[in-house]
C-alpha cells in the first residue's frame, strides 16, 4: 500500500508538471498510475457493488489474485454506476458481476472505449417481484400480477398510505418498479428500503411473523436456500419491451451476469486479466460463499479463502497457464 501511494504521488506530480509544461492540459485520467508495487506484481482495483453475491465473486477472485498470482487487491465499495465511472478515471480495474446496464455499456464500452466486456460469470441473474411462500398458500392467485390490485389492502403500511407497499432495495439497483407500478396501473407505492440487507431483513420478518410483503428480489441469492419465496408473474418480457425506462410494462428479463474491465487493464493482458476472463462458476457456488459471509459471520476474505480451499477443481482451470 505504502509504496503504491508513493508511486502514485510521483505519477501525479509528473502529470501535473507535464501538463503545466504545456502538454495540453490535464485529462480526467491524469495522475492515475498502474505501476506495480514493490514485491507484488501489481494492484488490481476491484469495485465492490453493494450486494452479497457480488462480494462473493470478488472475495474468491481477490483471494486467488493475492494468494495464487501474487497481486495486491484494492477493493473499493462503489455503487454500480459510480463503479463504471471509475473505468474512466482509472479508479476501477474490474467489475466482477454486472447486471445488464446496456446504457452504461453503450457509454463506456462503445462510445468512450474505456471498458471491455469480459463475458459471463456463469451466474444467471433473475430479478423479480416476490412474496413469502405463506402468502401463496393462503392466496393462491396472488402470484399472478393481474391480481395484485385485489390484494393491495394487505400490503398497506405506514409508508404507503391507502395504497399497498412495494418494498424496493438500494436505489442504485437495476429497477423498473416505479414505471411498472404506473404502467400496469397498480394501486401500490414503491418504498425504498435502502439496501439488500434491509430487504432480506424484511423478507425474513415477513416469513417468520406471517406478515404480508411484496418486494424486489433477485437470484443468485443465498436466502432462497433457507426460505421459500414465490415470484409474482408480470407480463412476460419480450425483447425491447424495456427500451424506454419510463414506459416499461413487462417483467424483468433474465440476466446473463458478466464481467467488465477497464480498457487499460485489458490491454495489459496480465495474468490478473486472464484470471478474471476465465472466471466462471454457478449460482450454487456463489450462494455458498454468500452464506459464509452473511450467516456464518465470516469476513469476505475468510469466506473466499474457505471456498478456494475446498473447491480446487473449480478454480484450477481459471489460473492462466503462464503463471
Amino acid at each position, binding site marked *: 500500500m505504502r509504496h503504491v501511494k508513493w508511486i502514485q504521488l510521483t505519477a501525479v506530480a509528473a502529470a501535473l508538471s507535464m501538463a503545466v509544461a504545456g502538454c495540453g492540459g490535464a485529462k480526467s485520467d491524469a495522475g492515475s498510475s498502474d505501476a506495480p508495487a514493490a514485491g507484488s506484481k501489481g494492484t488490481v482495483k476491484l469495485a465492490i457493488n453493494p450486494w452479497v453475491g457480488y462480494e462473493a465473486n470478488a472475495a474468491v477472485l481477490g483471494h486467488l489474485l493475492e494468494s495464487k498470482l501474487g497481486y495486491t487487491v484494492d477493493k473499493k465499495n462503489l455503487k454500480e454506476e459510480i463503479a463504471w465511472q471509475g473505468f474512466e478515471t482509472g479508479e476501477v480495474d474490474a467489475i466482477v458481476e454486472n447486471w445488464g446496464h446496456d446504457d452504461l455499456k453503450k*457509454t463506456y464500452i462503445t462510445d468512450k472505449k474505456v471498458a471491455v466486456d469480459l463475458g459471463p460469470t456463469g451466474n444467471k441473474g433473475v430479478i423479480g417481484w416476490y412474496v413469502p411462500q405463506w402468502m401463496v398458500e393462503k392466496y393462491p392467485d396472488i402470484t399472478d400480477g393481474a391480481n395484485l390490485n385485489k390484494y393491495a389492502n394487505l400490503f398497506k403500511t405506514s409508508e404507503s398510505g391507502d395504497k399497498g407497499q412495494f418494498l424496493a432495495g438500494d436505489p442504485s439497483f437495476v429497477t423498473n418498479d416505479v414505471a411498472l407500478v404506473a404502467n400496469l396501473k397498480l394501486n401500490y407505492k414503491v418504498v425504498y428500503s435502502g439496501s439488500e440487507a434491509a430487504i432480506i431483513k424484511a423478507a425474513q420478518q415477513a416469513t417468520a411473523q406471517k406478515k404480508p410483503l411484496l418486494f424486489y428480489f433477485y437470484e443468485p441469492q443465498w436466502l432462497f436456500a433457507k426460505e421459500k419465496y414465490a415470484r409474482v408473474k408480470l407480463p412476460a418480457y419480450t425483447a425491447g419491451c424495456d427500451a424506454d425506462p419510463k414506459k416499461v410494462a413487462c417483467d424483468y428479463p433474465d440476466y446473463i451476469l458478466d464481467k467488465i474491465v477497464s480498457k487499460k487493464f485489458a490491454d495489459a493482458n496480465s495474468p490478473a486479466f486472464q484470471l478474471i476472463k476465465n472466471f466462471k462458476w454457478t449460482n450454487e457456488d456463489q450462494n455458498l460463499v454468500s452464506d459464509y459471509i452473511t450467516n456464518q459471520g465470516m469476513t469476505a476474505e475468510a469466506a473466499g479463502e474457505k471456498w478456494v480451499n475446498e473447491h480446487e477443481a473449480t478454480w484450477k482451470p481459471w489460473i492462466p497457464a503462464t503463471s
Partner: protein
Amino acid sequence: MSTAVTDVTVPAEAVDPAPDPAAPGPRRKLPGRRTLILLLVLATAAVYLVVRTSAPADDDNPWAFRFFSGVRDWVDANRDTSPLFLYGFNYLRLGVSLLVDTVHGALYGLGWAGLVAAAGALAAVVAGWRIALLAVAGFLSFGVLGLWEESVDTLVLTLSAVLLAVLIGVPLGVLAARVPAVGAVLRPVLDVMQIMPTFAYLAPMTLLFLIGSPAATIATLIYAIPPAIRITALGITEVPKSTVEAATALGSTRWQLLGKVRLPLARPTIVLAVNQAIMMALSMVVITALIDAPGLGQTIVQALERVNVGAAFDAGLAIVVLAVVLDRITTHAAHRAAPTTHRSVRLRLAGPVVAVVAVVAATVLGRMSSWGAEFPAAWRASFAVGVNEATRWVEFHWYDATEALKNVVSAGLLDPIETVLTTTPWWLFLVVVLIFGALSSGPRAAVIAGLAVAGLVGLGLWQHAMQTLATVLVATVATMAFGIVFGVLGARHDRFALVMRPVLDAAQTMPSFVYLLPAVALFGASRFTAIVAAVIYAVPPVVRLVERGVRDVPATVVEAAVSSGSTPRQLLWKVQLPMARRGLLLAANQGIVMVLAMVVVGGLVGAGALGYDVVAGFAQREDFGKGLAAGFAIVLLGVLLDRLTQGAGRRADDNRLRRPAT
C-alpha cells in the same frame, strides 16, 4: 469606558431613531396582533379548504431535470476536451490529489508506531502531557479496533481538507473582517453553505471532480470552510480597538498592524476556527465514502448496507475517538495560544526537540522491527459481536412496540401534515409564507423565503419538497420537545448536566450516518426511521442551546423572583423560560437545519422524497438531473426554514430590547 470610545460610539446612537412616544406599549398592542394572526390562520384554512388539490404528482421530466442532465452530458462529453476542465477542474483535482497523496505518504511513512508517537508528541508540545496520553491511547485504539488503516485514511482526508480550509479560510476571514465589502458578500454565501445539507454537495462534486479522494477532499473543504472563515473574522474583529489604536499611533503600517497586532491577538480564536473546521471535516469525510473516499466512512456505509450495527459501532467509536483527540489537542492549543499563558523559553524549545526525537525513534524502531509493519493482531478487540447481539435481542423483543410507535406517529401526525402540505396549491403556500413570514420575521426574511418557495416550484419537485417538509416538521417538534426537557433539566440540576455533558460531546462528534443504523434496526425502512435518526442527531445541540439560554438568565432576576416567593415551577414558567426565549428560538433554528440535513440522509433508508431523489441521482444515470435538482431543492428548503426561524429569533431579540424591563 474611555471617553474616546464614548465619543466615537455616540454617533451610532445618534443615528438610532428616538423612541416614538406616541407608539402604544407592546403590552397593549399584543391582543390586536393575536386577533390578526388568528384571523389570518382561519382565512388560510378556509382558502385551503376551497382550493386544495388532489396532490397531483410532479411532472416527471420538468425542464430543470432535463437541464441538469444536459449539463451532465455536456461535462461527460467534454471532460477531456473543454479548456474549463483541461486547465481548470482537472488541475484542481490533480493538485488536491497531490496534497492528499503527500499527506497519505507522510502518515503511512511513519508506520503505526511512528504515527502514534507523532500524535502523542504533537499533543505534548501544543497541548500538554495529559492530552498527549489521550492522543496515544486514542490512536492505539484504532489499531485495537482493527480499523488502523481506515482511521488513518480518514485522518489523511480530514487533515488535507482542513489544511486547505485553513489556507483559504483564514485569509478570507481576515479580509471579511477588514474589508466591509468582502464581509457583506461572504455573509449570505456562508449562510447558504452552512444550511446546505452535506448530501446535496456530492453529485455536483462527482460531476466536476469525478469520484475518489480529491472530490471527497473538496466536498469536505466546502463543508468545513464556513466556520474557519466566520470564526477567524470574529477573532480579528474582536481585537481590542485600544491596542490597534496604540499601535497605529506609533506609526504601524497596515501590514504591520495585521502581522504584529491583529493576527497574534486573534491567534487563540483562529486556533478555535481550526478546531471547528476539523470537527466539521470529520463529519463530512464519513459521508464522502459515498463517492469513493477511503476510510471509516466505507466501513460505516458497508455496515449500513448489511444492517450490521456492530460494525458501524466500532467504526463510529473510532471516529468519536479521533474527533475527541483532535478536539482536545486543538482546544488546549487554543487555550495555550491565549496571550495570558506564558511558558518559559527553555521549555518552549526543549519540548519540540524531545518530541521530534521520540517520533524519529518510534518510526525507526517500528520500521526496523517485524511488529512495526502492521498493527499487532493480538491486541485487537471489538464491540461488534456484543452490539449485534444486543441489537438482535431488541429487534426481537421490541418488534411490536416499535411497529406500533411507528404506525401511530406516521398515521396520527406525519400523514395528516403531509396531506395538508401536498394538497396545498403552491401559490397558496407561497402567500402563507409571505404573510406569516413577514409577521414573524419581517419583510426581508419573508421575501427571501418566498423566493425559495418559488425556486422549489421552478425545480419541479414541489410534492417531494412538501413530503420532506412534513417529515422535517414532525422531527423538529420532537427534537424541540426532547431538547427543552433535557435542556431545562440540565440547567436546573448541575449533577444532571454533569452526566449529560460527555454524552452530548460524543453525540455531537458522531457522524450523522451512524445514527441511521439503530434507527433502521428498530424501525425498518420508513420515514419514521429518518425522524428518529434526525431527532437523535439534532437533540444534543438543542439541549446545549436551551441549557445555556436558561442558565444565562441573570442571577439577579432569578434572585428577585425567588425573594418574591416564586415556586421553582413558577420561576421556570414565568421567569426563566420567557427570558430564555432567544436561546430557545436559536435552538429551534439550529435544530431545524440539522433535522433537515438528517431527514435528507434518511433517503438512504426509506424516507423517500428529496433525500431519495439525491441518492438515486448519483446511483442511477437517468435520475442524475432529478438528483441535482433535488440537491438544490434541499438547499432552498433549508433557506426557507432558516430565514423563517432565524428571523423570528432576531425579532424576539428586538422585542426584548425595546420592551422596558419588567
